[in-house]
């Protein structure tokens, strides 16, 4: 049968345990920043080679 809900699992309170990041919000902001950087780099790439 479907197991009972996990009452003990920590969610937002659980730290990402990634060096340099204390919260998941920080991880998401990093990914967002990475995405912006990739778009900027692709724009520069387009300017250089097109």
């Amino acid at each position, binding site marked *: *049968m*479907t*197991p*009972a*809900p*996990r009452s003990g*699992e*920590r*969610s*937002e309170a*659980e730290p*990402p*345990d*990634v060096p340099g990041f204390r919260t*998941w919000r920080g*991880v*998401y902001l990093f*990914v*967002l920043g*990475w*995405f912006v950087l*990739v*778009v900027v780099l*692709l*724009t520069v*790439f*387009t300017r*250089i*080679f*097109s």
Partner: protein
Amino acid sequence: MNVADWVVLLGTIVGIAAYGSWRTRHVRSLNTYLRGDASTGWGTIGLSVMATQASAITYLSIPGQGFESGIGFVQNYFGLPLALIVVCAVFLPMYRRLNVYTAYEFLGQRFDEKTRLLGAGLFLLQRGLAAGVTIYAPAIIISTVLGWPLDLVIVLTGLLVIVYTVTGGSEAVALTHKWQMAVISAGMVTAMVVLLLRLPDGLGFTGAAHVAGALGKLQAVDFSLDPSERYTVWTGVFGGLFLSLSYFGTDQSQVQRYIGGASLREGRLGLMFNAVLKIPMQFVILLLGALLFVFYQFAPHPVFFNQAEWRRHAQDGRFRAIEAEHASAVAQSQSAIRAWLQARASDDTAREASARAAMVAASHRTQAIRAEAKAALVAADPRAKAKDSDYVFITFILTQLPHGAVGLLVAVMFAAALSSKASELAALGATTTIDFWRHFRPLATADEARNMRVARRFTALWGVFAVTFALFAGFAENLIEAINILGSIFYGVLLGLFLVAFFLRRVGGSAVFVAAVTAQALVIVMYFSLNIGYLWYNLIGCAACIAFSVALQAVLPPRARAAA
């Protein structure tokens, strides 16, 4: 393919499948079978999510897309990192807290059983039909270029994936995904290195990139607001966000990849791994295609890359004339490129501009002859397959790579086909067992051994269905597009159901169920009465489902509202 290629191909593909089956042969727990090993880490989850999304068509078609239209297609993935952040922050914690096997169980807990069955039914309808295509589409290409019987490729691929998926379920799928991704990565890096080594002396990566750029193949981003432009930053961010949210958040073949694992942290990091790597990965695959375009400016190549199709129809003198005209145009284009490279090095701006114009004109002429060849093919036989971009990369593999590497790259195609197929079968089996069989056999729910047997049988049954469908798929024209249309018709409403569940807490089961059925009917009526791009139905279905839910919840009588 020689002995070395066969050893590499069979050693990797059969070896990985056998390893997956052997390692997971003792799986007896339904939880492990449907959600994978409870100690799975973020690396395995991340690779499994990536392997599920990238089918063989990704590695066959996307280099062809780069060759034909340039790398602008990369913008289609711009919404993916944003969608994965939403899935990490909202969808995944809820799935884990409720401890569900399938995404549709969440709908049952949030709303009611009928809404759960509706969501699961929409998934089975859409993914079940697509299951045949994920075997058929790569098999038709591989069998054409290698000269193997199509039915044999379909049956062998299908049997291999059925064996290990039925044996070890989700655990076998995740285990084999890791090794299949290793084969895929090694193969794609090998192809890129060989391509760079085969470029003409003195050209190198930078020179080739400048040629590709000058010929319009390296426009990665386009900020244009023109709605007629197919790929722009805006369509990528907004359309891609919407499609990725549907796919990663509500499609069980993806949800099953990340709801297991050791903890919420592992699932989240696995998804963030994809959010960071997906765009660069697609960029590199597209760049490979653009560099293939430059390579073939200097190397002899056929006017039409699907040579089997060309030989079948191109019988008379008109086709020989097109071939001769193409060879002459390629030679002129090559001279024009060399002249431009010399002019560019001379720092004479006027000379460079003039040489560039001549090079672009020569390239356009070559493209025009290719278009003429395709038109002639269709004129000779209206049923002829006039699209050859899917055959560009495989032609390069078979004609330019050394033995051993050819086997590795063919293994890449099979590994990609098996990895996406395995996730589909595991998801179809899980959804049929958990959301349908157990719903109609509630007393059997507690019997774990029986549940396991049923889950294995449903997984095998979906595998047999997919193989059978693929065997008869050749009778249908434009099959892939038909399946994409079908997906767009149902995906929107499915996402709408989940968005209402997550973000509109006041809407109840009856309101959302009626809204979803009405929205689905509306989409179907619109599809048959309007002539708009089918991707819009994703947005229309989702928006209609949400709007109708809110409206119905507001007008329902208080008693029904309370029951809802």
